[in-house]
């Protein structure tokens, strides 16, 4: 039982990161109706900026995170303006290929600038255990990560529901043509979504590698993206709350399956995420909390 709880706690802390990246994926999906395959690499790139600011420029870590998020937001906005907007939003193939290209570009650029050796990330949260039952320990890291995720989703919900740009963003993701006919400028509104997603992604990558067990290196987010994409699909792709619940659920499934299903070694845990993704797509394509695609004719 203690071991089970221990695995659950592990699952929660990984799941929280999956949840944040899933949140970023959902924001892009709502804006452009595609999965941004470069989301993880963009987040990794942002985390490197945070690392450099904090370790080489002596910026306090949380200030470095905020600056890193702001720079990432600018990069995200620039990508939307130069590489996404010129293409027909209804034609997904070119857009998907662009995000795959960005995946490679960000990975390679980070390697060229910062090398491929793993680097320890500055601590963002207090160390030690908040609670322990025998082998099951709930670290302060896990507690703080969960709190961070809740704060982020709370702030995003406020931003989307209480501000004018948030209203425009929800309108455009609901019906692009009617939004345009209401005088909303669609381009800048979608750009806002990309900027927001990039900022959330950088926060996600930072708290992920702030885990004392992990280090930052250019490929660190590649696996996370698979888990997060499954999480976003499980949650329904267009639901913020769904992304969070999906992320935590995927984290726990991964953690528990690896412990209790002997024929799935840790190396194969990625397959569990893919399995969840396939099951969701087959049995409930709109996910747990997504909007079903229903059209009255």
């Amino acid at each position, binding site marked *: 039982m203690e071991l089970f709880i221990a695995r659950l706690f592990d699952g929660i802390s990984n799941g929280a990161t999956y949840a944040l990246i899933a949140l970023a994926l959902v924001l892009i999906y709502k804006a452009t109706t595609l999965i941004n395959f470069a989301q993880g690499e963009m987040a990794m790139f942002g985390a490197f900026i945070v690392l450099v600011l904090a370790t080489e420029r002596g910026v306090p870590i949380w200030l470095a995170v905020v600056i890193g998020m702001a720079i990432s937001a600018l990069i995200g906005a620039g990508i939307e303006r130069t590489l996404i907007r010129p293409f027909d939003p209804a034609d997904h193939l070119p857009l998907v290929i662009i995000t795959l290209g960005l995946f490679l570009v960000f990975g390679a650029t980070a390697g060229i600038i910062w090398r491929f050796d793993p680097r320890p990330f500055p601590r963002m949260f207090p160390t030690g255990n908040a609670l322990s039952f025998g082998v099951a320990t709930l670290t302060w890291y896990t507690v703080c990560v969960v709190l961070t995720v809740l704060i982020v989703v709370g702030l995003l919900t406020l931003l989307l529901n209480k501000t004018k740009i948030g*209203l425009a963003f929800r309108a455009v993701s*609901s019906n692009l043509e009617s939004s*345009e*006919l209401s005088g909303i400028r669609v381009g800048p509104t979608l750009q806002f979504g990309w900027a927001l997603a990039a900022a959330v992604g950088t926060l996600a990558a930072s708290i992920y590698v702030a885990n004392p067990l992990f280090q930052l290196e250019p490929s660190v987010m590649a696996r996370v993206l698979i888990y997060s994409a499954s999480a976003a699909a499980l949650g329904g792709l267009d639901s913020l709350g769904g992304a969070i619940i999906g992320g935590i659920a995927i984290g726990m499934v991964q953690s528990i399956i690896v412990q209790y299903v002997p024929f799935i070694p840790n190396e194969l845990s990625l397959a569990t995420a893919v399995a969840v993704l396939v099951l969701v797509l087959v049995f409930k394509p709109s996910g747990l909390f997504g909007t079903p695609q229903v059209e009255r004719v």
Partner: protein
Amino acid sequence: MSDEVDPATETPPATAQRLLDVRGLRGGYGPIQVLHGLDFHVDAGEVVVILGANGAGKTTTLRAVSGMIEIAGSVVFDGEEIAGTKKADIVRKGVAHVPQGRGTLPELSVVDNLRVGAYSRKDKQVDADMAKWFEVYPVLHERRDQRAGSLSGGEQQMLAVARALMSRPRLLLLDEPSLGLAPLIVQDLFQRFREINKETGTTMLVVEQNARLALGIADRGYVIESGQIILQGDAASLIDDDAIRKAYLGV
């Protein structure tokens, strides 16, 4: 100066209040040309209807006016050429377009749909306007927190119209508002258009297949066929026109 008065214009003094003046309008989708040189106008305060069969180019005409397709020819709104202007800017000038089908934002609540309608406004009377349209369409008030996608077809059409009116347009473009709605609901919807036109002075350009209904509330009408205007006149004379009676009224 290019402000020469065209001697062919039927009522020269009316140009002062000519809200929309369209000349030689051509346009379509990619290589397919749908509109082959349309001339029509709408005076301030009028309700004008464009009649025609499926595929005649009615919807395309409205899309051309609100900037949704590339066009050749001239579209003058309130004395200003708007051909080639961006959609969002045309809305800001005072043209609101209720597209065919359900022009609502299905995932958003009724209230949020109306707020989106007022998106381009900067004044403080948005809430007062919303209260006014809730009075005109009480069912929307009852369902104000419901998602627009969960409303019935008629309610969604009311919402789409109310949303467009929230931008305080001077010209309201209505694209087949009767489409897919039950006859009783449609009667009511059209009566309401006429009342709104009388009370607020909002000029309306309505595209319809249901000729009897549309002519019933209109001041004037045009009939288009294959992207060209084949007939025009005031509503009363069109209703009595033999060709119209045969083609559109089924008598």
